[in-house]
């Protein structure tokens, strides 16, 4: 299998070129071309998943080419247990996203071209092992997202798009500064593997304006990534962007884009600045707790279904942050508790994946009812259960997945995050467990208001979920149930990489031990 990673990244661009040659009137052909493109990408991703060597936690399928040698910039790709699930998730979500977009009828050509470009950008971020390349893909992804929200979105789309753009751009700037600082510190290379080796030592003891350089760079990167996650207090762009974005874009946004922030932290902050993980873990856990509680409280108050689901994302990402913070349990400072570190960090990556499938499902389902009812006001429905029984059943499953019901995948990862973080951040985790109740409260309350009670007479003409919509939801549902019952196939794939990550943070951080 030659250059499989390049294929995964560039297949959508090939599709984009193909779409450019299709006349704009042939909308169906454009849609089919997009479906074929993403379908092909998904196939390659499945091949990648099945040929990936799970016993080896380091980078595989590496590709390396010169790009701008004078600046130390190269084209390096590689995949490990951290990026593999994200690549698979993205391939799946992109494929599903095309079918979710099937009803787009305005500027179809532009829409799918941008959609495929977005796909390439995201894949590029996950697979780049050159920091400069990573950054380029990061920016490539921004532009199509901006236009997809700004042109195909809801009534306030322009405001939402510009806000998303500015906010993310702000993060990018901070990231760029950190990127350059690391570049110079590591001997003018962007090769991430080299940077991981060199950065902890190169920056050891360096002080800028009385502050440790490691801390400064960590914070810059953290804010850059935190905006994407989003971590409180950088989260307010998200509900707006979700409410205004077209369904498929919400699906990609919640399913994949939010994971990029977490991925960035784990890939860059954790490996290049392991010392600062020790220093920052407490704050990270605290922010996680705030995300859980704040997100849930806001979700409880929402009247707009889509906004509620958006806030639920903030809530769910909170568990993930707790799991990430747990990594320091593996180190020497607190006495080694590898169990907790493993539970936390594996739980966090598992939660990335599960949130991807569950929130994608939730947004698709919001779109299904919006298409017919033309509003998303939770109070405006009522009694839909008797009118749309299949839709009701699927929403029930998705909501239960969202509220962390055992037997569905979200529970496993959330529980792992909490169990992992508990030995290190006892009080924070205990407060966060209130989320167990709050999650259930907002989901069940919304469910009751929408589906129970007497049928609202306005809606006697609604029809149940159609086959295309079912086709988009069922794969996600199957994955959610399967991984909820038996999570091993997933966890076995990532655990070796996570052990390396724990080592990097614990051992390297422990050796340098400046905090």
């Amino acid at each position: 299998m030659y250059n499989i990673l390049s294929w995964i990244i560039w297949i959508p661009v090939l599709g984009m070129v193909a779409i450019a040659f299709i006349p704009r009137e042939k909308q169906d052909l454009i849609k089919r071309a997009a479906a074929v493109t993403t379908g092909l990408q998904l196939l390659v991703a499945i091949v990648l998943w099945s040929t990936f060597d799970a016993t080896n936690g380091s980078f595989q399928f590496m590709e390396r080419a010169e790009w701008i040698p004078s600046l130390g910039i190269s084209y390096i790709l590689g995949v490990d247990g951290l990026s593999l699930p994200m690549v698979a998730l993205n391939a799946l979500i992109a494929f599903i996203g095309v079918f979710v977009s099937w009803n787009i009828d305005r500027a179809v050509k532009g829409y799918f071209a941008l959609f495929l470009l977005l796909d390439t950008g995201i894949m590029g971020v996950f697979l780049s092992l050159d920091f400069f390349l990573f950054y380029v893909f990061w920016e490539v992804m921004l532009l199509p997202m901006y236009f997809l929200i700004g042109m195909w979105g809801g009534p306030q789309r322009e405001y939402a798009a510009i806000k998303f753009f500015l906010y993310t751009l702000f993060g990018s700037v901070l990231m760029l500064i950190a990127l350059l600082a690391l570049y110079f510190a590591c001997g003018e290379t962007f090769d991430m593997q080299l940077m991981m080796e060199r950065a902890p030592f190169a920056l050891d003891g360096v002080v800028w304006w009385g502050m440790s350089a490691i801390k400064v760079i960590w914070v810059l990167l953290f804010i850059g990534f935190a905006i994407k996650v989003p971590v409180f207090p950088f989260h307010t762009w998200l509900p707006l962007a979700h409410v205004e974005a077209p369904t498929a874009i919400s699906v990609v946004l919640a399913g994949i884009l939010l994971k990029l922030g977490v991925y960035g932290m784990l890939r860059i902050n954790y490996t290049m600045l392991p010392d600062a993980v020790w220093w920052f873990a407490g704050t990270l856990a605290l922010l996680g707790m705030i995300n859980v509680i704040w997100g849930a409280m806001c979700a409880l108050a929402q009247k707009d279904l889509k906004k509620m689901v958006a806030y639920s994302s903030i809530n769910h990402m909170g568990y993930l942050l707790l799991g990430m913070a747990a990594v320091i349990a593996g180190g020497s400072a607190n006495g080694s508790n590898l169990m907790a570190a493993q539970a936390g960090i594996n739980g966090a990556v598992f939660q990335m994946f599960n949130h991807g499938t569950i929130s994608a499902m939730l947004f698709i389902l919001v779109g299904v009812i919006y298409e017919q009812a033309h509003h998303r006001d939770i109070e405006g429905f009522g009694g839909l259960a008797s009118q749309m029984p299949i839709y009701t059943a699927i929403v029930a499953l998705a909501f239960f997945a969202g509220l962390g019901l055992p037997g569905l995948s979200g529970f496993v990862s959330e529980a792992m995050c909490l169990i992992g973080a508990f030995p290190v951040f006892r009080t924070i985790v205990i407060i966060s467990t209130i989320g167990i109740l709050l999650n259930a409260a907002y989901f069940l309350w919304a469910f009751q208001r929408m589906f129970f009670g007497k049928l609202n007479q306005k809606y006697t003409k609604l029809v149940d979920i159609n086959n295309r919509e079912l086709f988009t939801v069922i794969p996600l549902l199957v994955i959610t149930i399967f991984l909820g019952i038996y999570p091993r196939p997933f966890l076995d794939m990532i655990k070796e990489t996570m052990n390396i990550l724990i080592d990097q943070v614990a051992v390297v951080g422990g050796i340098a031990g400046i905090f």
Partner: protein
Amino acid sequence: MTGDMLINYALGILFFPLISFIVLIFVGKRLPRQGDIIGIGTIILTLILSLAMFGSMLLSHDPGFRHEASFTWMDLGDFEIRLGFLIDNITIIMLLVVSLISTMTHIFSTKYMEGDIRYSRYFAYLGLFTFSMNGIVLANNLVSLYIFWELVGVSSYLLIGHWFEKDSAADASKKAFLTNRVGDIGFFIGLMLVFTALGTFNYAEVFEGVAKGAMSGTLLTLAGIGLFMGAVGKSSQFPLHIWLPDAMEGPTPVSALMHAATMVAAGVYLSVRLFPLFTPEALLFIAYIGGFTAIFAATIAITQNDIKKVLAYSTISQLGYMILAVGTGAYVAGFFHLVTHAMFKACLFYGSGSVIHAMHHALHNLKDHDTDPQDMRNMGGFKSKMPITYWTMLVATLAISGVPLFSGFLSKDAILAGTLSFASHHPQHFLLPVFGFSAALITAFYMFRLIFMTFHNQPKLPNVYSDIHESPKPMVFPLILLSSLSVFIFYTLPYFNPLSDHGWFMELIKAKDSMVPGSPSAHDIAEGMHHSHTLTMILSILVASLGILLSWSVYIKNSVSADTWSKRLDLYYNLSLNKYYFDENYNKYLYQPFLRLANRVSYIDWDLYDKYFINGFGHITKWLSIVTGRTDYDGLDQTIVDGIGRSMGKVGSSLKEIQTGRLQNYMLFALFGVIIIIIFQSF
């Protein structure tokens, strides 16, 4: 029976009902009789397997029997979770109870739910519920327990909300789930405490760790109380008892299944299973929660007029007894009461279902939609019309009141002996037996009140009365079977002494020592109970007869007027009638303020923080962009962005303006960044 065979049987018991659920959910409506045959077939298979296990337990007669099997669910290197089954005599008896009551519920429902719009869905949910409940019973570790625990929660949510068109049913199902989740928070914290200290979820390994002292003192007490909070939620103990009475919105057979024999018993089962890790402090907490719940719920049941509400509060009270037994160390007595109570309480619920069914039909024929078919004030004199329902309910009532010759006498007696012996060792806790005995008195009173108001006296509504009929066979059969199982002999064989609980049950279920160092041994506890046995027996027969006598004089003889007394005790009467205003106060002081808080948080988030603080940056930037927009970059930038804008379609002109400025700033920022870094590097 070999261990492996037992595991195979257990797998069958666990998964047959799940198969029924899956089949009925997908194709139930298309099957003949909407597939209820599938539900009944699988549950009878489950029952047969349970009976086989039970039989082999009786034959081998080994109190120490236990068999375990696990598989690796998750293995991350050091962090490993193994899920599996634990089969011992407690498991086997509990499996039989669950399968038996579930089978009865299936059979009863074929008539009770006949013609229901979601008949097939209903049987599917029964399957899911049975699966989840058996999962709890079979678990050998805290994670499995928690998983099935929550699944029971969700299946009860579905069953209570079966008639979701009614707002009250939808409310009740949500309330049940959420109230349970409050307890589950405690459960989960307890689980994390245990795992953090001992590194395992497996019961046996946890107990071993506790015995070794790897976890002790306050931490262990807190972990125990945390885990017990789960039981408080599921077993509807004070202060989380509020969901159970509302859950009566579900179909009555469901109440018999969940609110008599299984779901609510899960909390007791958990406490029994985890008994070895509770510290004396945790046990004391448990005892007081249970004892208080027993008396507290009984004082509410006494004034309720809805026949199911009486039974609901009676259930809460009886569960309090079981919890009290665990707390005083007599956990075997608690488990014994769980089993006997499952039989007679399920019988009472079916009986009430039979009465409601009859009322419903009579009212339906009269086209009367206003009269409440569950209000006992609309009944009276049904004895002659529904003789089987009457006699079976009477037997169950005698059992629950603790009258000799019936099962309830034996188990209640054991519990009360436990409290009495506990109080004799710890005189400062004299309240526990006081709670126990007074609750017994009140129980006898209100249960006979139910019987008298429903079946005796003159009919209150003669035209309804004339149309009342005995229920059909599938509804009567469970009544007869379960009332028979309320007779003492089924629990004392091979002995025939109606006054002693000595029999197969007590021989096969032997109390184990607590694993917490310094706790009284099982032998000491049994010894103490033995000593107080005679006194307990005399006292409990006394209070039971007193309760029945009082009830008789009020409701049959009319020598004491209920009305006069309720007026005389006005304040208390209203408190009891209104359930001590718990719902109102929770609503007023917890729920509403919390909702207001959530709204406030959302307002701060969206209308203040985002609108003014975050957008403030936007305004500053916009201003900056106007300034910088007149710099050299202008021309270059305009061209690029306009170019993109045109090729992509119409983008608002205002948008372009901001965006232009933004890109400039961005590049400016980037430039600054580079300069700063270069300055840094030169140090």
